[in-house]
């Protein structure tokens, strides 16, 4: 049983994600270069953060055309849990696996700071061990993290319970402070903040437990012991 971490040219947080999975939670993970085929026996897929293709043209758009995305789509349609973090979220949106769009932050500059999320949907493979309304201390680090959904999309998101996380404070102009969404089926989740940066007490000065539950939710969903 293993978790696949996809690596694009320009991905940076692949190593961080791999470290958290294998060193902190001691589960089996493997890197997959974006030109490789994904095996069918993966238990979950994670698209990590970074600057794939240097964010050229638009963050995530070029990576969304990578060969591996066809496999990601295929496995996602079978219900495999897929998590996109930061640039990974941007790629999933550009690939059409998640609704909405990520735009430049309102303040027009890159922002690296600690904030907290509020859980809005605890039925996804990544949130089923969290409580509704639970606060998650977590850092953001992005320049294009402003989530935008037009009226119709927003209405659909609300109707289908697709808003997974919201920011606890107005931070970058995101529509109704959306920090993470899922697809209609609920197995593909994208989030702008970095959970992999919030699970170790040495690095997270506030409280690691909530962010850890994001990973624990996944492990219990796919039946991995750690």
């Amino acid at each position: 049983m293993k978790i696949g971490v996809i690596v694009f040219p320009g991905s940076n947080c692949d190593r961080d994600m791999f470290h958290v999975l294998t060193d902190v939670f001691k589960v089996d993970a493997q890197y997959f270069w974006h030109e490789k085929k994904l095996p069918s026996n993966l238990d979950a897929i994670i698209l990590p953060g970074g600057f794939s293709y240097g964010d050229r043209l638009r963050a995530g758009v070029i990576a969304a055309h990578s060969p591996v995305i066809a496999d990601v789509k295929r496995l996602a349609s079978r219900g495999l849990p897929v998590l996109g973090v930061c640039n990974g979220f941007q790629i999933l949106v550009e690939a059409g696996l998640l609704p909405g769009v990520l735009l430049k932050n309102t303040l027009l500059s890159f922002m690296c700071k600690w904030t907290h999320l509020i859980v809005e949907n605890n039925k996804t493979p990544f949130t089923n061990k969290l409580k509704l309304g639970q606060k998650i201390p977590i850092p953001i680090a992005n320049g294009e993290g402003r989530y935008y959904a037009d009226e119709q999309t927003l209405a659909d998101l609300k109707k289908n319970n697709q808003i997974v996380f919201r920011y606890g404070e107005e931070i970058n102009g995101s529509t109704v402070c959306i920090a993470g969404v899922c697809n209609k089926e609920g197995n593909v989740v994208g989030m702008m903040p970095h959970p992999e940066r919030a699970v170790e007490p040495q690095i997270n000065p506030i409280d690691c437990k909530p962010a850890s539950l994001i990973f624990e939710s996944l492990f219990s969903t796919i039946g991995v012991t750690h």
Partner: protein
Amino acid sequence: MSLEKQEYEYLEKKIGRKPTKTELNIVAAEWSEHCSYKSSKKHLKTLPMKGPRVISEKGFDSGVLDVGDDYIVTVHIESHNHPSAVEPYGGAATGVGGVIRDIISAGTRPIAILDGLRFGNIEKDPHARWLFKNAVTGIADYGNCIGVPTVGGEVEFDDCYSNYALVDVASIGFGKKDRLIKNTAQKGDLVVLLGGSTGRDGIGGSQFASDSLESENRSAVQIPDPFIEKLIIETVLEARNQKCIKAVKDLGGGGLSCAISETADSLSIGIELDVDSVHTREPGMSPDEIMISESQERMLIITDKAKLKTLQDICKKFHVQCSVIGKVKDNKMMHVKKKKNTLALLPANVVANAPLLDRPTKKPAYLKGIQNEKKLKTQSDLSLVLLKLLSSPNLASKRWVYGQYDHEVGIRTVIKPGYDAAVLRLDNGKFLAVKIDGNPKHCYVDPRQGAIGCFEEACRNVVCTGAKPIGMVDHLQFGNPEDPEIFWTFIEALKGLADYAKHFDIPCVGGKVSFYNETPKGPIKPTPVIGVLGLIDKKPLHTSASQGDVLILVGKTKNELGGSEYFEYIHDFVGGECPKVDFKASKENMDAVLVLFKKNLLKGAHDCSKGGVAVAVSELCMQNNVGCKVSLDKIPGEKLSHDRLLFSESHSRYLLVAQKQKLAQIKKVLSQNNVSYDVIGSFEGDQIQFKAGSASVVDLSVDKVQKRWVRSLEDLVLHG
């Protein structure tokens, strides 16, 4: 062409004939001040560079320190002053690129960046604001894109940098000792150029850095491409893993000319290359342009013929261009060809070793009597003075800057920006503390004491996290070395640094010298910037303070306000006694703090530097949302007027925060270590209070001050 007459004659004599045009261009690039260090090389030898942790290898661009358990840390510092003054975004960004490539040249992965930024008066000068804003964006965009966290640095403003920019970038690398690339090469090995294509960027750049900034020369600016840099990082580290790299050098100032000559010289080999094999981005580039181009994001790799295919496959995977441009010979010559025509054939050691200069020195006239103070206007409201200082660009919070840097990527940043030093966790359970510090105001008033002060300040900062200093890098930035008065300040600063390094056994593991930092207004103030690395064996000290904690001040406060923020920002006065480091007290105080840390007796430590004890106490209050009541009468040292006690920038002073119940043990340790100290106050309420007897000298609301301190720089830059 920038070869001096005597240099031309020297070259002619060495090669026994007149040089060709290409040879002249190559030598002029390598013999520029920026590449050859001809003014400073002789003198830099006085810095101690050896130590039990220091690892030196041939041709290394970065300093290497052994941190135990078969792990090493590499460090390098560079500047990109001239380019940043012309085009701050590209100049600062490419500065990051250059220093990162030096780190990967050693075979280590870059794990942190630090930036030192200095500009003119941003309160009065919109151009300085423009330079500052864009330099920060340049560093942010580049560092963030390559995924290396910018974890610390400095931001300072002074009139002497009008129309100019000092952009210092340092980087730290980490890796296993057995993966260190030991540069070697044998006859028959291949010379490969890897990375971005060669264009006309930066033509004349390193020579440009050696002329002063009188006219804008936009072709001398380089365009950054952090995406290619990221691919290069992964390519080089993968090539290292697969043992494809026998020797590696990053291309920086002087381009191919310098990289080839320096590599050939340090490895005692000959290199023959064909300019037609260099992958270029513009058609019709002349051989000379190809040799001196400073296009960014390029590396030179020497590989075994048998490993070429593997190297090419790795480059292909990462979509990084690579061309075999030459081969290694054993004739110790640098041979540049265009197909069959020889354009240059020079002994590598002649090219790489410019005739060194013995520049004259003369004590500057301005220093005469500078320690004398003029009569200063009495400041009746010291609360207002402190508030003004905390809102001033030099002392205000730099959150606006580091908030734009991803300082968390890599998940190593244990102590984040905004504290005394950044602390990174290493893979062997140890922690690395790192800080860079400069103080041109002090160095102007007293170059030697000022330089020592910068070194001690960087050490104090890492000590405040519980780390013992293990190595130093220095960046010496001065005006025109041909001016004997300026060269005197350089020599003095160097002497100071060498003295401190020797006394404290902290080896200099790298550094840079940057001369010709001048604007039409004149030279910059002497600006040595010192970076110190410290190692901690256990959990670092993450400073905090809460209601009921006690505040101790270790170290004496003296009447030394020359070059202080108080004198210059409030009184507009340059002069007075520069703070001097007392080596004995420095060692005793430093050791005492480390003992207290080891015994887990402290909740926090914060050093006193710019703005004195008043600013240091205020910072503790604002960061922890707690008030403090301090008694000026308890401050150890000379009996001084209130303002001098508050704002003197004497060295070797530490504020210690501790729980009341640990006080007795702390006092025991401090007395045993023979240090001057006293319990000067306690954390209580929500006001920053300094009292003399029962009289209130300073009384400010923490909340009110914090709001100003946090927003001041951002408001100034964004809204003028």
